[in-house]
């Protein structure tokens, strides 16, 4: 059997969140008729896939002890650039996809350069990127949604066999990232840099390269999320993705990744993403007003992390 350390290294410490996840799912299955149906569960998976891709990406950055606040804006910018190259009959399918990915990747790389070479705190750098990317999205789109996208691209929001393509994207990204972080030398270096930057440097790890990799990967995956979102809403929306970074970071932290870096795993992030997704879905099914939803969600997020930290401390 193949063995992925990054997937199970922290799994037994994640008991708290698994319990919360199971309890909420069980409650929903018992109190509603619609939760435990294939259609609804597929729907949940589809809904979490964009946050999932973002969360996996930002896991890289959080592991190095950094943070990326520009996710939502970069999702919008990538969606817009992708849509601009996606008008029917102009370019083949791979062009808009690559443009979207590259946009995200470049934004991430620029974040990384400013953090490493510029020596500016990640919070500030990515806060700057957050407004710049949003501004660029508005400029490039003229403030209006970029419509008229080729069907081949909007089909990417559809299904491949029984599974929605966005879900497949999320699954692939999570699998590859898990293998990378758990098995690759550079993945190990990422943990080392987050755990103790000075010590990592003294042991010959190139801190700059590792951080560039983390921010670049995060950007690339943000670009992917932008493309998937554009496909789903069939336009490049300059106002899309507001506050997406918060859900993504919340998911990662629920999953046990330390905000100070060096500790965390992809499996934890997946659990965090699922928890947030199921909460959203459950509250919708229960017909809870969106005002109350926000309050309940916040309480559950903090509660889940509190339970989890108590667990792993004892």
């Amino acid at each position, binding site marked *: 059997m193949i063995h992925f*350390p990054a997937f199970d290294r922290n799994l037994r410490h994640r008991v708290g969140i698994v319990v919360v996840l199971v309890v909420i799912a069980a409650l929903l299955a018992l109190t509603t008729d619609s939760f435990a149906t294939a259609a609804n569960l597929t729907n949940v998976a589809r809904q979490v896939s964009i946050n999932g891709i973002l969360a996996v990406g930002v896991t890289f950055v959080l592991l190095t002890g950094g943070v990326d606040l520009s996710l939502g804006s970069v999702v919008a910018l990538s969606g817009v650039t992708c849509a601009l190259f996606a008008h029917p009959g102009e370019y083949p399918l791979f062009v808009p996809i690559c443009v979207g990915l590259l946009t995200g990747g470049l934004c991430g790389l620029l974040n990384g350069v400013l953090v490493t070479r510029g020596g500016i705190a990640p919070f500030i750098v990515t806060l700057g990127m957050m407004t710049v990317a949003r501004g660029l999205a508005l400029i490039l789109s003229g403030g209006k949604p970029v419509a008229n996208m080729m069907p081949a691209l909007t089909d990417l929001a559809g299904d491949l066999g029984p599974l929605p393509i966005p879900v497949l994207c999320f699954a692939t990204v999570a699998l590859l990232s898990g293998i990378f972080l758990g098995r690759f*030398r550079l993945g190990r270096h990422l*943990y*080392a840099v987050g755990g*103790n930057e000075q*010590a990592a440097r*003294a042991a*010959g790890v*190139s801190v700059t390269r590792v951080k560039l990799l983390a921010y670049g990967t995060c950007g690339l995956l943000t670009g992917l999320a932008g493309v998937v979102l554009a496909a789903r809403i069939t336009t490049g929306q300059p106002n899309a993705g507001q506050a997406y970074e918060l859900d993504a970071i919340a998911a990662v932290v629920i999953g046990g990744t330390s905000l100070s870096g*060096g500790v965390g795993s992809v499996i934890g992030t997946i659990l965090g993403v699922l928890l947030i997704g199921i909460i959203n879905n459950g509250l919708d099914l229960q017909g809870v007003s969106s005002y109350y939803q926000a309050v309940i969600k916040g309480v559950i997020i903090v509660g889940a992390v509190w339970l989890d930290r108590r667990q792993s401390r004892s």
Partner: protein
Amino acid sequence: MLRACQLTKTFGGLSVLLDVSLDFRPGEVHALMGENGAGKSTLMKLLAGLYRPDGGEIQWRGRSVRFATPHDALTQGIAMVHQELMPIPDLTVAENLMLGMEPVNAWGWVDHAELHRQATTWLRQLGTDLETSRPMRTLSVAQMQVVEIAKALARQADVILMDEPTAALSDHEVSALFKAIATLRQRGVTVVYTTHKMDEVFRLADRISVLRDGHLVATKPAGEFTPASLITQMVGRELAQVFPPVTTTPGEVILTVTQLTREPAYRDISFTLRRGEVLGLAGLMGAGRTEVVSAIYGLQPADAGAIRLLGKPLVLTSPADGLTAGIGMLTEDRKGSGIIPAMSVQHNLTLAALRHYCRGAVVDASAEKAVTRQAAADFAIKSSGPAQAIQQLSGGNQQKVLLARALLAAPEVLILDEPTRGIDIGAKAEIYALIGRLSAQGTAVLLVSSELPEILALTHRILVLRQGELSAELNPRQTNQEEILRHAMPR
């Protein structure tokens, strides 16, 4: 007055302290001795309220007490001065010292003049005239230590626990500290104290308790021990000669350092190093020893000068360059630039040489596991397993992991910066033996140490640094501690 009753503490199934009963008397200096991992720090942390016991109890002034936090212990009069200092770097000396007990005026505002006056008074009692308005971050480790002790004094503590207070102090500072401890004793304060330096214990302690593997093996007045009997008790066996004799003859010149300069730390440093040679670098704190060897590893590049390995000039801008060239280093600051605390023993161990345990870019898990098992045996690393987080290991075992880490890269030149600081005598002897073996294999060793007996016994040659300049080159067989110190003292 303070009594430990059958105290037991376990971490993750491993008991680090077992059934230890011990009483501390007013006005005594009580030394806790033992190898790393023997349970000294754990016992202190239990007494100071940092840990809670899993069994047994603490009695304080005849009553059973449970300290929930260090603050609880402190309000009852038990203060601890930590091995790893915890200052607030951007506050001043006075603010750190008086933290939580700042004098206030009628408005409830902090009275800064009074704050500095009181802080100065406490520092004077320790025989130091440290400027109280300096930010804490500008102090040396030794100076921070003094502030920490003054802090305990200011809190009117009846018991002061000191975990290796002299590990980072120069001889001058040590005597100042001893004077302060003598003052404390006269006032009836109990000082509980750990150290790895034999001579200190006999100069200072009234009573000595020896811990081994979490058990208390002896408590006696200091006069009833001899250094030899103490070591035997600590180690549980007769230690063969601590220092192995120097038997190797250095070979060809491997490393040439020419006019290395980085102002203001050091200037014009030139020397050579031969295969199989152990070259000692002596000097006081702040003489620039660490800075010079850091430049040779690429950790803190020099401004000017040349470093040649086998005649080939090296460009060293990062430790990665040093490692590639065949230079390895064990850094001085184990916690700051050594261990990755949350990482496992295995991952810490292989970090510097990970490329040797990879297939392409992928870590070869079985090769990594094999080398970890091998290293754990070779270096006698005590842990619950390769997956245990290194932060749960004792200082000596952490150090062995780091030494193994440096050696896995098979360096031709190995820099050891204070390799035995704060580790027990058993681990020290192992490291001494290892230096001998490396030298016999032809590895060139550059040894920085503040412990002169170590430098004298282990090296082929000694360089002395004084205020950033080379002041002498000595033959260890024809010199002594006094001569080294004479060359090291600032003029």
